[in-house]
C-alpha cells in the first residue's frame, strides 16, 4: 500500500491509535442527563391516580389517567432523544481493524484533493473540491476530524478555506455550516455509525455529500438571501433584488418598512422621520421645523396654520378701528384716547 501524502509509519501509528480509541473510550460516550423532572412528574401523576381510584372518584381518576398518558408520552420522547445521543452500539467485530483503517487512509488520498494527518493534534483532515450551490460559489472546505473525540458530540469541524460567508453572517460559511459545525440533517445517523465503526472513508464521503447539497427548507441562511441584507427597521433578511434603501441615510430598507415623507415624498426609514407634534404625520427631518412658542417639531402646513392663528389672535386683541401700522406692527395705543362716536367730525389724535 502506497500512501502519497503521509509517511507510511505515521499512517500506521494513526491507524493503531484510532483503533485503540474506537475499541475503548469512544464506545462509552458522554454520560447523558436523565429526565428526572419528567420521572418525578410521572410519579406524582401515578400517586394522584391511585388516590382517586382508592376514593372511588372515578371522574377525577379518568382525568388523571389522561394526564398520566401525556406525561408518559413526553417521557418516552425525552428518553428516545437521550438514546439518540448515545454512541451507536457497535459490536466489537464491526469496529474496523487497524489494517482496515489504514486502507481507508490510503483511499482518502484518492478520493479527496488533499489529505493530512497530524499525530500530535490527533487529527485527520481532508480538503474538498470547490463547492458551488445554485450559482453561489462557496469554495473548498477542510473537514478536520479529531479521532480522540469520536464518540463525543462534535468530533469534527468544517472550515471554509476562503470563506464566502452569507452577507451579515460571518459565521455561516455554507447554508448548513455555522461556526464550523455542520448540521448533518439526514446524515446524522450514518455519520455517527461510520465514526463509531472507524469507517473513515465513509465518514468523510458523507460529510462531503452533505456539503455538496442544498436543502432550502432548512438552511441557516438561504442561498436566495446569501448576498442579501437586513432591513434596518424590522431586521428581515432580503435578497439584493428586493433591497430598497432610505433616501436620507441610505440604510437598507424592505418594502414594508419604507414610508414616504408627507412633505417631500422621499422614501425614508423610521430613524430618519419624526412626527409632527400637531398633526402626527411623519416627515423627514428637513420637512419639519421648530416653532418659537412651543416645543416639538411641526410640519410646514401646521406651521402655517399656527402663524395664521397667531395673526388672527393679534387682530382680535386690537381695539376696533385700529389697524396695524403699514409695517404690520401693532398700533401703539394712547392711554385715555377714546373716539367719541357722537362727536361727528372729531377723531382721536394719536400721539
Amino acid at each position, binding site marked *: 500500500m502506497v500512501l502519497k501524502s503521509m509517511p507510511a509509519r505515521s499512517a500506521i501509528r494513526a491507524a493503531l491509535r484510532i483503533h485503540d480509541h474506537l475499541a475503548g473510550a469512544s464506545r462509552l460516550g458522554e454520560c447523558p442527563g436523565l429526565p428526572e423532572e419528567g420521572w418525578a412528574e410521572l410519579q406524582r401523576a401515578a400517586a394522584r391516580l391511585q388516590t382517586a381510584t382508592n376514593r372511588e372518584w372515578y371522574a377525577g381518576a379518568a382525568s388523571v389517567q389522561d394526564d398520566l398518558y401525556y406525561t408518559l408520552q413526553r417521557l418516552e420522547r425525552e428518553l428516545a432523544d437521550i438514546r439518540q445521543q448515545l454512541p451507536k452500539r457497535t459490536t466489537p467485530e*464491526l469496529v474496523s481493524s487497524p489494517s482496515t483503517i489504514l*486502507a*481507508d487512509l490510503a*483511499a482518502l488520498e484518492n478520493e479527496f484533493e488533499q489529505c493530512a494527518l497530524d499525530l500530535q493534534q490527533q487529527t485527520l483532515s481532508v480538503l474538498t473540491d470547490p463547492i458551488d450551490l445554485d450559482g453561489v460559489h462557496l469554495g473548498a472546505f477542510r473537514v478536520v476530524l479529531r479521532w480522540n473525540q469520536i464518540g463525543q458530540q462534535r468530533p469534527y469541524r468544517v472550515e471554509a478555506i476562503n470563506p464566502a460567508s452569507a452577507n451579515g453572517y460571518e459565521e455561516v460559511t455554507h*447554508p*448548513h455550516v*455555522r461556526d464550523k459545525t*455542520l*448540521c*448533518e*440533517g*439526514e*446524515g446524522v*445517523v*450514518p455519520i455517527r*455509525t*461510520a465514526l463509531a*465503526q472507524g*469507517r473513515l*472513508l*465513509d465518514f468523510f*464521503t*458523507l460529510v462531503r*455529500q*452533505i*456539503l455538496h*447539497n442544498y*436543502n432550502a427548507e*432548512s*438552511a*441557516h441562511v438561504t442561498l436566495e438571501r446569501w448576498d442579501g441584507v437586513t432591513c434596518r427597521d424590522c431586521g428581515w433578511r432580503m435578497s439584493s433584488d428586493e433591497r430598497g434603501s432610505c433616501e436620507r441615510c441610505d440604510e437598507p430598507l424592505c418594502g414594508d418598512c419604507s414610508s414616504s415623507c408627507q412633505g417631500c415624498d422621499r422614501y425614508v426609514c423610521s430613524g430618519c422621520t419624526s412626527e409632527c407634534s400637531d398633526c402626527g404625520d411623519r416627515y423627514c427631518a428637513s420637512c419639519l421645523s421648530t416653532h418659537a412658542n412651543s416645543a416639538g417639531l411641526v410640519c410646514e402646513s401646521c406651521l402655517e396654520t399656527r402663524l395664521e392663528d397667531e395673526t388672527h389672535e393679534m387682530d382680535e386683541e386690537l381695539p376696533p378701528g385700529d389697524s396695524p401700522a403699514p409695517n404690520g406692527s401693532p398700533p401703539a395705543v394712547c392711554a385715555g384716547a377714546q373716539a367719541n362716536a357722537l362727536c361727528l367730525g372729531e377723531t382721536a389724535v394719536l400721539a
Partner: protein
Amino acid sequence: MKVLLINNHGGGFADYVEIPAGTTVRELFQREIRAGKAEDYLIRCNRQPVASDQVLQEGDRLSITPVKIEGAR
C-alpha cells in the same frame, strides 16, 4: 459467500451478508435499495468505483452512499 455490505442510506447498515456466488454489484444493490436508482448513489467496491456488472468475490466490501444527503440548520 460473505461480503461486507455498507449501506449509508437512511439509518445506515454495515454488516456481513451472505450472497450466492456470482452475484453482481447491480443485483446486490437492487436487493438492498429496492426503489433506488444506481445513479443516485456512490457505489464502491473495496473503496474503488466499480462497474455494475462486476461479480462480487468472497470478502469484498461494497459501500452504497447516497449522492444527495440533505443537511439542516
